[in-house]
């Protein structure tokens, strides 16, 4: 599949054999999500996510622009995903492969189409001025789970980000510097989390379609598993039990009941991750507040 | 292989005459030019530019013996076309109209060789003062990029044909507003030169186009508002529509509606647009085959136009083609 990577038949057979025995090569259980390490940058809206060897960086930026003509009451939000050979030589420069397209589209659908960010809150003067929020996702190293990591990175960054406060007087907009007024966070409606499942078919296709053998699925496949998978499913869900996006772009057919099972598993994972992220942001907030108080009190002293 | 047999490729080169018959029109002596001009005064305002046209059609591979058999049959005084047609005869055409609910007019025609084309007409109310053309043609040919020279050159031929010859008056609504027609042509498959097929399908679609009936006053010079329309009553569009004919020239013979194999062995090709009983622009030479282009005897242009005229000017005949 991926150009340049040759997986030997021995390896394929071994991994599938291991999966049928419920063992994964990296020692995880079949339904075990990798540990997600999230580190927040010193600036608002800069997040670094690590899952196994996969590493993703997200940075949020904002500016004031004119809204779209047909949507005068909404601000703008764009997600751009940058997949370069830096992540792995299998991604070619300047040419988007089908896989890259699906990664980009899925992240965009998960975050943007599901209205995770309240666009109406970005409106400043209807039809004239609004905030444009931009999330730049850079994939630094590839070991599977790009969609999941990107989604976590964007959602954490959005929650972390704070933009300058503004004052509107008539047609005039006054942007206050961070030192002048404390910055304001974005209004996040919900936190969608993507969970990717890889499917393996240890038997022939005939068995899958006509027989009653079930396909094996693993949560959060690493690169090796992604290369060998027969099908892939990404479920995006938030902790309000809302499924925001499901994409299973062909590949191995899977049972409808399996889908339900996967969705419920995804929910458990999403709930835990959402709470983790929340905690992390709160801690960071506290820390920043602490240092701010110090600064403020320092200025008061003067 | 290429190394050893490289010299073979040289043979394939296209022979071109000094005057470059290939592009555009009218490489002919002054006297002939006058003669044609006298006969068909209206047809000289623009020359065709169809050099790229054939490049896109599926290349037909013929063996040398097939080629010479066909050429001899078509070249002889007593012409025998491969399917026995006479020089004025079209291949059977099947057509349907009005099957697209979301369009104001639509048509589909299928030729017996499997070529097929669908045309949709959509109308939009526009401010006359702001629109240069009230007709816009858009072309999509399966298997070709929309910005390929092939598609573009066909689009410009049809655009110039319809923009010029569909009378603006027939699209008038009020003193300020008019309908603008969007003609979208989708070619699903084509095996011979697609212009005739496309223009016939457009003809049919326009003849079966219904537009919403105007309810507001025709005179709106002083009024700011947009015109209003009847909710469900429609009026049939009344327009006269030009048609393009393709003629292949082989030796002294001119034949209408050449099939793929006839195109492949033809010496030259002509497109002749016909409107209101006379030839009009665009009119010009087209490459019907990649390999076999000869210079064109101007007398044959006259002959071709006569051929088209004998077909197009008998209403009975047009009926037959389109039925």
């Amino acid at each position, binding site marked *: 599949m991926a150009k340049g990577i040759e997986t030997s038949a021995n390896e394929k057979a071994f991994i599938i054999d291991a999966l049928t025995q419920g063992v994964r090569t990296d020692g995880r259980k079949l339904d075990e999500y990798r540990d997600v390490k999230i580190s927040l940058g010193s600036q608002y809206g800069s997040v670094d996510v690590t899952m196994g060897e996969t590493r993703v960086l997200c940075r949020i930026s904002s500016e004031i622009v004119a809204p779209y003509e047909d949507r005068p009451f909404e601000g703008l939000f764009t997600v751009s995903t940058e997949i370069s050979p830096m992540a792995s030589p299998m991604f070619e420069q300047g040419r988007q492969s*089908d896989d890259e*397209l*699906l990664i*980009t*589209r899925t992240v965009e*659908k998960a975050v943007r*189409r*599901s209205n995770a960010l309240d666009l109406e809150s970005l409106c400043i003067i209807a039809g004239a001025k609004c905030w444009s929020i931009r999330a730049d996702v850079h994939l630094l190293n590839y070991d599977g789970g790009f969609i999941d990591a990107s989604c976590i990175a964007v959602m954490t960054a959005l929650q972390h980000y704070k933009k300058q406060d503004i004052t509107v007087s008539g047609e005039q907009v006054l942007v206050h510097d961070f030192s002048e007024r404390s910055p304001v966070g974005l209004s996040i409606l919900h936190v969608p989390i993507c969970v990717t499942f890889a499917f393996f078919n240890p038997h022939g*296709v005939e068995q*899958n*379609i*006509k027989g009653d053998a079930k396909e094996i699925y693993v949560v959060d496949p690493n690169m090796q598993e992604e290369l060998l998978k027969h*099908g892939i*499913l990404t479920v995006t*869900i938030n902790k309000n*039990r*809302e*499924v*925001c*996006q*499901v*994409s*299973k*772009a*062909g*590949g*191995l*057919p*899977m*049972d*409808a*009941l399996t*889908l*339900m099972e996967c*969705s*419920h598993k995804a*929910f458990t994972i999403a709930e835990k991750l959402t709470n983790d992220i929340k905690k992390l942001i709160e801690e960071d907030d506290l820390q920043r507040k602490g240092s701010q108080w110090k600064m403020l009190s320092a200025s008061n002293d003067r | 292989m290429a190394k050893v047999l490289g010299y073979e490729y040289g043979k394939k080169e296209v022979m071109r005459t000094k005057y470059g018959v290939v592009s555009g029109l009218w490489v002919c002596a002054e006297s002939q030019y006058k003669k044609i001009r006298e006969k068909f005064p209206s047809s000289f305002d623009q020359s065709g530019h169809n050099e790229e046209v054939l490049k896109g059609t599926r290349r037909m591979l013929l063996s040398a013996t097939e080629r010479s058999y066909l050429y001899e049959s078509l070249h002889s005084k007593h012409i025998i076309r491969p399917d026995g047609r006479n020089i004025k005869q079209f291949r059977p055409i099947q057509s349907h109209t009005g099957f*697209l*609910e*979301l*369009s104001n007019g639509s048509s589909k025609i299928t030729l*017996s*060789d*499997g*070529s*097929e084309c*669908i045309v*949709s007409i*959509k109308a*939009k109310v526009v401010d006359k003062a702001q629109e240069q053309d009230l007709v816009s043609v*858009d072309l*999509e040919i*399966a298997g070709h990029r*929309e910005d390929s020279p092939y598609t573009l050159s066909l689009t410009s031929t049809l655009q110039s044909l319809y923009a010029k010859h569909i009378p603006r008056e027939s699209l008038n609504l009020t003193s300020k507003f008019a309908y603008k027609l*969007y003609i*979208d042509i*989708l070619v*699903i*498959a084509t*095996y011979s030169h697609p212009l005739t097929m496309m223009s016939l399908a457009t003809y049919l679609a326009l003849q079966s186009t219904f537009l919403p009936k105007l309810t507001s006053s025709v005179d709106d010079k002083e009024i700011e508002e947009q015109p209003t329309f009847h909710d469900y009553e429609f009026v049939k569009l009344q327009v006269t529509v030009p048609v393009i004919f393709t003629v292949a020239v082989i030796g002294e013979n001119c034949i209408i509606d050449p099939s793929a194999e006839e195109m492949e062995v033809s010496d030259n090709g002509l497109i002749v647009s016909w409107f209101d009983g006379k030839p009009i622009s665009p009119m010009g030479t087209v490459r019907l085959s990649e390999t076999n282009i000869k210079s064109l005897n101007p007398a044959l242009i006259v002959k071709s136009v006569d051929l088209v005229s004998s077909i197009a000017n008998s209403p009975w005949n047009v009926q037959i083609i389109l039925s």
Partner: protein
Amino acid sequence: MDGRRWNELRRFQCRINTHPNSADGSSFVEQGNSKVVCIVEGPMEPPSRSQLSATEATLNISLNVTPFSSIDRKRRNKNERRIQEIITSLKRTFEQSIITDKYPRTTISITCHVLTLDGGLISAVTNSITLALIDAGIAMYDYISSVSAGFYDNTPLLDLNQLEENDLSYLTIGIVGKSEKLALLILENKIPLDKLEGVLAIAVAGGHRIRDMMDKEVRRHGELRLSKLANK
């Protein structure tokens, strides 16, 4: 919303072998007011060597949503990401359902033209491809039938039209034969997890009904051919 009951399909009509002279396989599908023409060519010698796979057939899909397909005429960019994504999804779906290793070193080229679009783009296109592939005599494990289902006011709704698609959350599935196996599943807006099962269930049932209607058409056409071949 258009007077149907919640589990009712829109008018579904299909024809196969619509272009016998220009393609190996062809079909025409009408799902409600959406109309799709599909043309299949192949398996055939690949146009370029680079596309060749020594073990299985290569699939090429192109999807043309015509500018006149929607109420407002609009020209679509072929490279639009959404279209590309659909193409990729379809390709991966049919790569699994065609027995591709029966046709090594060949190309199967599929072209879909959407003539009118009133919701259910993916499902109408998927169904048309299934039929055209069958018409071309290409070996497949089973039918892939596709339908969309949405969710409104606590009730699942089957087979949405454009208006409903604009306002409701919905999913599109591609289902394998009469089984409950999903070959394709695309959901783009929010559906509560606890309602998902219900929506999925009516979609699967709807998919099976569409399969039956497609099967009927294939058999009808087959009988017709056979009656003619009796003259052989």
